[in-house]
Every structure is written in structure tokens, then in C-alpha cells.
């Protein structure tokens, strides 16, 4: 018996086995790493944990993340769709063109997330009811309020996807798609920020983001200058201000932080 035979046998009943294991290489890698640390007695558990990752929590966790992302995309799509339908809100020309482009992307994200969830035998959540006027009554009559919210949603979206990347590590295809959405959200965020005459990147905890106090949770923690075990990256070279250091890295938000932000619109 050998590991190739085991996986080939499983493949007979589960053609997706390689996807679930990321790849043949990763399955072996996982075994190798664990094996270096574990006593021989733990070997069966080591193999079990590889399959557990592939077949067990992996899929549930991935589906949870996908539905979490879907809710955000529903919110964004709904927001832009309503805004575009509010007559006189968005100026004709470049502004309207940009918002239309962004709306199309958000709608596409909704579709791809729903399809992906279904392909993993999950159930996409249905679209929630949003109330953008709950805390921002002039959101669809005041262009500046609209743009402020758009910026907050896009920057939140970037941070939300980033916060979930590690939870998708068991599924290469989903992780890659999430990253491909994540960078598009960042492009949206940068453009909306520039429409408001802000810099395209986030400096400090919202110092350059021109948002009211109530929107601060969107930028909480963005002032971070400690990265990857290095306590203060401004010290890595001459001329690295805190502005440069915080602007160079976007920070993740947890699911709970994102839910608190979204609850302002539910």
C-alpha cells in the first residue's frame, strides 16, 4: 500500500479528491511537516488530519466565508443599484460611468459567489433587506453622503476579504477567486477615494479618509506599523514615515468587525 494508491482509490468514489487536498503535493507536504514533529504513534492521526482538513471543516469553513462575502456583495450591489436609480444623485459623465462599472462588478461578484457556493453543495443566503437611510437619511439625495458611504463600503470590503483569506487556505480555487475579487474591490476603493479628493490608499486610522466619526470602525487598526514580527517597519530604512508605513499595508477586519459595520445598514 502506498499513498498514491490510497488517493487513487479515493478518487474512484470522489473525483474531486485532488482539489480537496489542494494537490497531491500539498497532501504530502502536510504529512511531511507533521511527521517531522510527531511521534510514530501519531502517524495515523497525521494522515487523518490531512483528510479532515480536506473533507471536514474545510468545506464548512469555506462555505461560511463565501456566504459572508455574498452578504457584502449583496449590500454593495443593492447600494449602487438604488443609487443609480435615484434621479439626480450621481452626475452624468465620468462619475456615473465609474459607478455603473462598479455596480456591474458587484453584481458579477454576487453571481460568482452564488455559483461557487452551489458548486460546493452549499446554499447561498438570500438577499437581505438593507436600510441605507437608517443612519444616513440623505444617502440617496446628497451626492457627498453617497460617495462617503461608497468609500466606506469598498474599504470595508477590501478589509473583509483580507480577513478571510486564511480561512480559505484549504481550497485553492476558492482562495484564488476571493483574491481576484479582493483586488478589484481595492481598485474600486481607490477610485472612489480619488473621486472624493482623498489619496487612493489608507493612511493611519482613517486620517486621510475624510469620514464622519461614526464611520471610524471602517478604519480601525489601519494605523498598524507592526508587520510579520517586525515591531516597527518605519525603522526599516530612511524616510519611512508612519504615513508611508501604514499606507503600504492594508489591514484585515474580523467577521465580527465587519458585521458591526454592516449592522448600521440593516
Amino acid at each position: 500500500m502506498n499513498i498514491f494508491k490510497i488517493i487513487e482509490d479515493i478518487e474512484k468514489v470522489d473525483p474531486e479528491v485532488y482539489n480537496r487536498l489542494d494537490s497531491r503535493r500539498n497532501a504530502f507536504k502536510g504529512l511531511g511537516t507533521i511527521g517531522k514533529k510527531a511521534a510514530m504513534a501519531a502517524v495515523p492521526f497525521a494522515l487523518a488530519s490531512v483528510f479532515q482538513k480536506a473533507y471536514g471543516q474545510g468545506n464548512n469553513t469555506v462555505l461560511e466565508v463565501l456566504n459572508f462575502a455574498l452578504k457584502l456583495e449583496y449590500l454593495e450591489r443593492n447600494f449602487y443599484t438604488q443609487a443609480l436609480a435615484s434621479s439626480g444623485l450621481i452626475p452624468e459623465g465620468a462619475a456615473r460611468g465609474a459607478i455603473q462599472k462598479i455596480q456591474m462588478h458587484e453584481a458579477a461578484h454576487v453571481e460568482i459567489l452564488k455559483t461557487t457556493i452551489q458548486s460546493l453543495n452549499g446554499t447561498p443566503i438570500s438577499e437581505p433587506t438593507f436600510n441605507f437611510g437608517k443612519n444616513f437619511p440623505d444617502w440617496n439625495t446628497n451626492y457627498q453622503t453617497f460617495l462617503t458611504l461608497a468609500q466606506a463600503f469598498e474599504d470595508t470590503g477590501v478589509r473583509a476579504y483580507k480577513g478571510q483569506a486564511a480561512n480559505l487556505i484549504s481550497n485553492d480555487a476558492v482562495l484564488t477567486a476571493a483574491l481576484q475579487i479582493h483586488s478589484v474591490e481595492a481598485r474600486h476603493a481607490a477610485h472612489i477615494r480619488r473621486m472624493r479628493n482623498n489619496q487612493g490608499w489608507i493612511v493611519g486610522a482613517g486620517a486621510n479618509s475624510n469620514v464622519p466619526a461614526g464611520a471610524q470602525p471602517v478604519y480601525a487598526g489601519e494605523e498598524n506599523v507592526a508587520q510579520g514580527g517586525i515591531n516597527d517597519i518605519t525603522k526599516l530604512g530612511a524616510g519611512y514615515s508612519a504615513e508611508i508605513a501604514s499606507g503600504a499595508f492594508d489591514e484585515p477586519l474580523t467577521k465580527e468587525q465587519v458585521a458591526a459595520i454592516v449592522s448600521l445598514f440593516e
Partner: protein
Amino acid sequence: MEKLQDKPTEKEPGVLKAPMERRMFMRYAGATAALTTLLFATTSCDEDGDDMPMDPTAVDLGKGDTGILNYAYALEQLEAAFYAEVVAKSLGLFSQTEQQIMQDIKGHEGIHRDFLKAALGTSAIRDLEVNFSSINFNDKNSILTTARTFEDLGVAAYNGAGKLLENAGFLTLAGKIVSVEARHAAVIRDLISNGTFSDSANNQGLDPAMMPADVLAAAAPFIKTKISANNLPK
């Protein structure tokens, strides 16, 4: 970081519900003796395969997560060198707002490079030699189109490399950098033609994700030093 990791399993594993699969799984998981032998065989054949013969003058990015981080470090070296040259030679071509943008991006790329170098420590590849002979630093259009190429390429590179990383912490770190690259890309694209910030995306609303070999081939005209990605995870 621990908050980002997978949580312990709470539920019946979905796919294993099928009795056939579960039986097979239990049978295999219980085969202790065979597995013990197997494990040692697997461990010794190591991570990423082939150690292919390569040009001895080439810089080898290495294997595993270290290799991927070196790959990112190589791209950040390229970007940082480019913007340093733009700020040194070409600021006069730009408006005040644009000058600030170039200064900011120079700072971001510089700190990305220096951060990765520090994080890699003794595993870091050496400094790369760049080749900017095809760029006209007296021409705003030449600078901006090159910047767009580098930024879009950087985004696609990080997007493609995410799945090659094994360590969740590194994945999050790469995520922190890639969205800033995407912000750069959007701003540069808008400087070339306002409204094109996300025209990199396909009709599913997805940005490109490129694998290291393709990224390095696209970057090769701008890098004199030969780079070997032969040992990177695939």
C-alpha cells in the same frame, strides 16, 4: 494570527457522509504499519520536487513559502527601483498631485521591499540588477504605462501566488500588500485615462491571477539578473 486559523470542527464532515467514502477512509486511516513506512518515504522526498538543473549565474528563489516570499521580494525590488528612478529623474513632468502620488508609491514599494528582505533574513535573494533601458524617463506616458504594467503585474502575481503559500500568516501578509498594489494600479490607470481603474477585471469581475513563470517572463525585460523559479511550489 490564531483567530484567522480554521476553527475546530463542530459538525459531521460533509463529504464523508457517503458510507462508501467513510469506510474507505477508516480503512486507510487505520493502516498504521504501512503508513509509518510511507510517512518516512514521503518526508525524505521533501517539498517541492525537482531541483532541476539551472543556470549557475541565476538567482534561485528557493522552495516552499520562502521561495514565494523571495518571488514577491524580487517584484518589489523591481517596483521600488522604478519609482526611485521616477522620483529622482522625472518629477518635473508631473503636476503637484501626481508628484505626491509618485512619492507615496515610491515609499510604499520601498517599504514592501525592505520589509520582505527583513522578513526573509538570511534566506533573502541578493539585490537584483534592473534594466530600464526601454523606459523613457523624460516622457510621462512612458513612465505611466510602465507603472501600470508593473502594478497590474504585481496584483496578478500576488493573486496567483496566494494558493502556493502554506502558512496562513504569510497569506494574510501577502493580502495586506496586494490590495495596496491594486490601489496603486487603479490610481495609475486613472492618471492615464480616468475611469479605467478596474478595466483589468474580466466580465466576472475578477482581476487576473498569474503563475510565477508567466509573471517572471513578463518582468524579464526589466531585470538583468537571471531568476530561477524552478524550485517554487507549482
